């Protein structure tokens, strides 16, 4: 039972990080139909920002703040430089361009920071184990991860459903042409989507760094791939779907590893992607997605 509880906490924490990354993918996909592979590089640059300010002796909350600002700027710049000139281009062109951005940024990071992993300066308070009673305990990092994801998701929900910009964003995602006829400046909406999604990726970068303990230029690939699976599970472009998908994935992964025999658990990623393919085949619109994708 303790094992189960411990795994449950672990899964909740992992799912929270995936959710923070997946939201950014889903927001951008909803509006632009762009699968932004370079979202992982936003996360990576966030992690390096955090290490830079952490090493400069800034306090942890300030480090997080600077990271979030930096990733928001990076995301907006990516949109402005690489994606905006391609507005209206076919889906595949957008997808390939985001792969190009991803590779370019990865290699730029290798050039500037070197390929060697660096330790992540996790504050001591995050490494502490906090007893929860009943033999359960939660690490500071997991607690912060779960709580910050919860708070940010509530804030995001309020933003999307209760504010003018949130309504403009939902309108643009549903029908960009009609949105423009309403006088909505679609470019502003897109910039806001990139900024918010990238800021959340910045938070995820710090949490991921604290979880894994080290960072490197290629670190963005795995979380973005998982987040991507989460958005597929939840339904491309649906923000609540992406969050739900992220937790489904977090639990799936942790419990596969925990309860499969040792020799099979190393196939974790294979199972995750098999599940992805099965979902695409039986319910391509995802758990919460409503639009039926083209299918032959």
């Amino acid at each position, binding site marked *: 039972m303790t094992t189960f509880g411990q795994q449950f906490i672990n899964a909740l924490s992992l799912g929270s990080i995936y959710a923070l990354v997946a939201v950014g993918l889903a927001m951008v996909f909803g509006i632009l139909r762009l699968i932004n592979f370079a979202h992982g590089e936003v996360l990576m640059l966030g992690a390096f920002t955090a290490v830079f300010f952490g090493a400069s002796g800034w306090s942890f909350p300030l480090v997080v703040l600077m990271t979030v600002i930096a990733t928001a700027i990076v995301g907006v710049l990516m949109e402005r430089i690489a994606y905006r000139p391609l507005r209206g281009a076919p889906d595949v062109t957008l997808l390939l361009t985001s792969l190009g951005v991803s590779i370019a940024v990865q290699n730029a990071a290798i050039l500037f920071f070197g390929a060697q992993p660096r330790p992540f300066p996790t504050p001591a308070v995050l490494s502490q184990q906090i007893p929860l009673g009943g033999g359960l305990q939660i690490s500071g990092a997991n607690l912060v991860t779960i709580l910050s994801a919860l708070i940010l998701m509530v804030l995001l929900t309020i933003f999307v459903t209760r504010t*003018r910009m949130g*309504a*403009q964003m*939902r*309108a643009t995602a*549903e*029908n960009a*042409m*009609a*949105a*423009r*006829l*309403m*006088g*909505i*400046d*679609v470019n502003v909406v897109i910039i806001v989507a990139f900024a918010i999604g990238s800021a959340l990726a910045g938070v995820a970068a710090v949490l991921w760094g604290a979880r894994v303990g080290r960072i490197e230029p290629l670190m963005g690939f795995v979380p973005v791939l998982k987040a991507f699976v989460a958005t597929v599970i939840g339904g491309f472009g649906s923000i609540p779907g992406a969050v739900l998908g992220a937790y489904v994935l977090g639990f799936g992964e942790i419990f596969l590893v925990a309860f499969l025999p040792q020799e099979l658990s190393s196939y974790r990623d294979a199972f995750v992607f098999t599940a992805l393919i099965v979902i695409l085949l039986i319910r391509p619109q995802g758990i919460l997605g*409503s639009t039926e994708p083209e299918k032959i």
Partner: protein
Amino acid sequence: MSPTLALHDVHVLYGAIQAVKGISLEVRERELVALIGANGAGKTTTLRTISGLFRPRTGTIVYDDRDLTKLDAHDIVGLGVAQSPEGRQIFGSLSVRENLMLGATRRGRNADLGADLERVFALFPVLKERLGQAGGTLSGGEQQMLAMGRAMMAKPRLLLLDEPSLGLAPLMVGRIFEVIARLKAEGVTILLVEQNARKALEVADRAYVMETGHIALSGDARTLAANPDVEKAYLGGAAAAGQPAKGAARA
């Protein structure tokens, strides 16, 4: 007095196809001008070009002494040109209230919209009952009302209506045209695109007939309605046999 809207020799390419081949037209203040013609004649492209969704290849579109061809769609709405697009294009997952509020996007964060909402409800009482409902759950006729009400929320000086009667049951068509007549009586300047030429010519002051990207005929609505060529081409079969099955009706 210069016209509210004047198109001069506007050419528009849509993909590789030239959809609009040099049209000129005018709408004066408080006028209701109809743009009629067959499916594919370029009427919708013309309206979308006025709204800034397409850039014309050549030509000018002057509204209030400003050339709209240089402006973005959202700025054109800001100048007071609102459109109720073909196929209604309401936001199905957003509530009726949110749809209406989005129509007033360019009027700013602090605009007092109470009076405008009341005006829309006066035109379309059913929308008041549906305020909290998702737009997608409305019937086709109600969605058309929402689309027009949403455009009215921009407090437009020029209202572009694209096929407001398309795919609607005859009773609903009648009600939509009643509202159009009422808006005209209230002094709204309107450019109306319609395939239902008979109805359009009944309410319009003047009309232009479009054929494959050109203006084929223009003039006083009543004169046009009496023109044997127009009668034969647009009033004979179309009105009696109902609309072509474009954009199937959603009950």
